[in-house]
């Protein structure tokens, strides 16, 4: 049985990040991926003349230029791939198309904090002071996070918190709770909250701290995507593993994480292979690990309780369109469209449980960001929404394709109605993914794409403050990825893998 220093179960963003950092750090790594290609959601597919990214809309935390280093940038610099990827800058933050009690909203928001605040003031006069306060809170958050790790004892922590009153005040509150305390026009609030769809939680439940972390990073640093789609990052990370004495095994499913005397010992696979290691980083969900991969008798009670306390986040539904007209010809001038029939996020979130009422979408047009996103004279639209119920669990197989097509058609209708742009007659290629599709390719429970729901008592701050680095009582077992200690999305998933790897390199990982 071959022995490794670390085995990574699953090659999604978290697993790849962990594997690459560990391999670069001198560990002998084995990454096992059930699919034919690592990446998980970070991949792409081709249809005819087009190549579609499965999931990446914009990468948060990479930063612009050498002086603005986001968390993802630090990771990629650590493993030496920042300069190996062809990056494209996203031209603007988003276009929000919605309506509120004051009428239709059609707001194109720029990157750059000052630009953003100025634009906000144009759309919602009287919002400047509140917007400046919000972004100052964002800067305060970053300072607190940077210094919290240096606190030697609880008194240092209290001193730090007392010196950062806005952070302390807002950290336990939801987005809507904080905004309700500010003298801020409702229109401005609605524009500011546009990113809630990225987190699949309404702003009554979404932690203000977490939401602001994400928004502040996006607006301050801007965002990027790889020209060759997210697979370019995936392949670069996989290459780091392979070229640093690591092995990557694809088309192989881990069937057991072997545990003895409360510690991991290795893994077994469906192909009958066995590998040993004292450290396992699991990129699969804790639900998958504790229901399928680890024998019942070895699972600590605390791990079971932790799993059973969680609530799954939203299941994804995507429509990819290859259009036979250019973005310019069609009038697709913007990169990211947030379309909510009504800006009331709490109301919209409730309606996202059923295909008859779910009309929320985030749609991107890569051609608005860069030439060459698709062949000349063509363009791409990638439409995404989420279902926050398990409605799709009950679709009979004989109805599945019809229901899937009907909902995809409704998403196209919603886009056309909101933007006034006719796209239906120009569809040259179409691909549709429902929760079943995501379940099939990732094995995620319910086909969820956003890990566990960031509900009030399970937001990022709550997780960070209450979890150990491993999220498990089993020695040597770590979790990385969208179900990890942080939240969901590319940067969070990679970040958990980065954190796990650094901890393992520092401590040996067997604690």
């Amino acid at each position: 049985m071959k022995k490794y220093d670390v085995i990574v179960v699953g090659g999604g963003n978290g697993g790849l990040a962990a594997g690459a950092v560990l391999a670069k750090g001198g560990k002998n790594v084995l990454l096992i991926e059930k699919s034919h290609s690592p990446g998980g959601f970070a991949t792409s597919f081709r249809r005819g003349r087009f190549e579609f990214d499965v999931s990446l809309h914009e990468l948060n935390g990479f930063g612009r230029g050498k002086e603005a280093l986001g968390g993802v940038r630090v990771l990629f610099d650590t493993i030496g791939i920042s300069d190996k990827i062809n990056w494209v800058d996203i031209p603007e933050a988003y276009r929000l198309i919605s309506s509120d009690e004051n009428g239709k909203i059609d707001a194109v928001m720029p990157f750059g904090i000052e630009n953003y605040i100025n634009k906000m003031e144009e759309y919602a006069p009287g919002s400047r002071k509140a917007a400046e306060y919000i972004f100052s809170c964002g800067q305060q958050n970053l300072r607190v996070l940077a210094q919290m790790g240096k606190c030697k004892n609880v008194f240092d922590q209290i001193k730090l918190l007392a010196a950062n009153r806005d952070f302390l005040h807002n950290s336990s509150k939801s987005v809507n709770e904080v905004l309700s305390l500010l003298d801020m026009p409702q229109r401005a609030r609605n524009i500011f909250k546009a990113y809630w769809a990225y987190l699949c939680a309404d702003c009554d439940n979404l932690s203000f701290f977490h939401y602001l972390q994400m928004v502040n990073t996006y607006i301050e640093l801007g965002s990027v995507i790889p020209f060759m789609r997210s697979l370019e990052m995936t392949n670069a990370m996989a290459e780091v593993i392979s070229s640093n004495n690591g092995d990557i095994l694809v088309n192989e499913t881990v069937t057991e994480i072997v545990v003895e005397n409360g510690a991991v010992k290795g893994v077994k696979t469906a192909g009958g292979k066995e590998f040993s290691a004292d450290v396992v980083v699991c990129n699969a969900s804790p639900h998958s690990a504790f229901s399928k991969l680890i024998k019942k008798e070895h699972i600590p009670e605390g791990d079971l309780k932790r799993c059973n306390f969680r609530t799954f986040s939203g299941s994804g539904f995507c429509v990819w369109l290859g259009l036979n007209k250019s973005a310019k010809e069609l009038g697709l001038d913007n990169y990211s469209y947030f379309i909510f029939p009504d800006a009331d996020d709490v109301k919209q979130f409730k309606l996202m449980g059923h295909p008859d009422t779910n009309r929320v979408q985030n749609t991107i047009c890569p051609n608005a960001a860069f030439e060459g996103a698709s062949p000349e004279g063509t363009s791409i639209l990638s439409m995404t929404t989420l279902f926050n119920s398990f409605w799709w669990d009950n679709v009979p197989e004989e109805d599945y394709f019809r229901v899937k097509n009907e909902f995809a058609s409704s998403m196209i209708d919603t886009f056309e109605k909101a933007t006034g742009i006719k796209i239906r007659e120009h569809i040259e290629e179409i691909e549709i993914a429902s929760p079943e599709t995501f379940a099939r390719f990732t094995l995620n429970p319910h086909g969820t794409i956003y890990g566990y729901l960031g509900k009030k008592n399970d937001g990022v701050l709550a997780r960070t403050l209450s979890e150990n680095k491993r999220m498990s009582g089993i020695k040597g077992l770590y979790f990385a990825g969208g179900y990890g200690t942080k939240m969901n999305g590319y940067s969070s998933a990679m970040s958990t893998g980065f954190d796990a790897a650094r901890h393992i390199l520092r401590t040996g990982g067997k604690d």
Partner: protein
Amino acid sequence: MIKHTALSLLRDLKAFIGIKKERLDAIDAAPDTAVESSFGVNMLADAMHPDRISLEVKEVKKDRFGSFLVLISGERRTLPSAKPGQFIVIKPSVTGIKYSRAVYIAFAERTSYTVFIPQTDDSEAEKLVNARKGDIFEATSPAGLGFYQPLRDSGNIFVCCDKEGFGASEAFRNDKELQERVKVYTHLAGAVDTENGNSQLSVFLRECKLIDGTLFIFGSEDFVTLIKKTAEDCGLIKKRIRYDIISPGKIFPDEEKKYVCRVKRGSEEFDVLCYGHMPLSASLEYAGVECNINCMSGTCGYCRMKLVSGDISVHFPEGEEPVRMADAKHGFIHPCRSYPLSDLTVII
């Protein structure tokens, strides 16, 4: 902007401390029962797209141009659903098939598939043409992109196929929803320019200019290339032309185009003979090397492997090569549609 006081400091500190406590209390109050493992959508995924299905030959109906095999499930009560235009890939198995062979499903029911195996030079296809009742095959779930999609395709459907694609045209003809608006042109004879009673190719060539719908083309590479070009010359736009090529090419051996492929797989390293007339995957499978074939058309990417050295040719229309950009950057190929031009080294 928010006024803070000494009193609010205490309140906020309490709330902050409560963040961690509230979560830990909620975890503690949660049950320690077994974690939920069964989810409707995941079970649906397993039912609709299993990695492998076991099929038994129930009936064989031979004709001049090949055989219709009626296949039933070897293990499951029902089979995954299939759309007209889709195929299954029959895997190398104990019945003697040496390499994967994609065959179109001419008729699909919940408990059986009827597939058409054309008579060709391919020795592995011959084994299937001569299959017997009771033979067992392992196959993939239905796959392929040559199916009708109402959100993309015109209501009027035209299908043009040769012997290789005949099963797909039968599927369109047999489909209750589509059959009223399908017109099929079949060319079952040998050479593509033969005009005889088994070919409607000349009819298609005459009527091509009048096509006012979506054209589906199924068959061998030469045939699809000819029909596609004809359709484009007749003014049919790209959006209205769908095609699928799954012919694996001629049998080996061809001593003139014989090469050595060095295979690296984990810690193993070994040599395999490969031939210029066969896709690389067929040569590898013939030598007993598993390649994870899922389509034989080059489009799914499941068989992707890294080409470290050597030359290959890939027969795809320019701009429609199915290898993803980042994969091409890192040297990955799809061996099911890659034909060796020299000695090769690959990493599986």
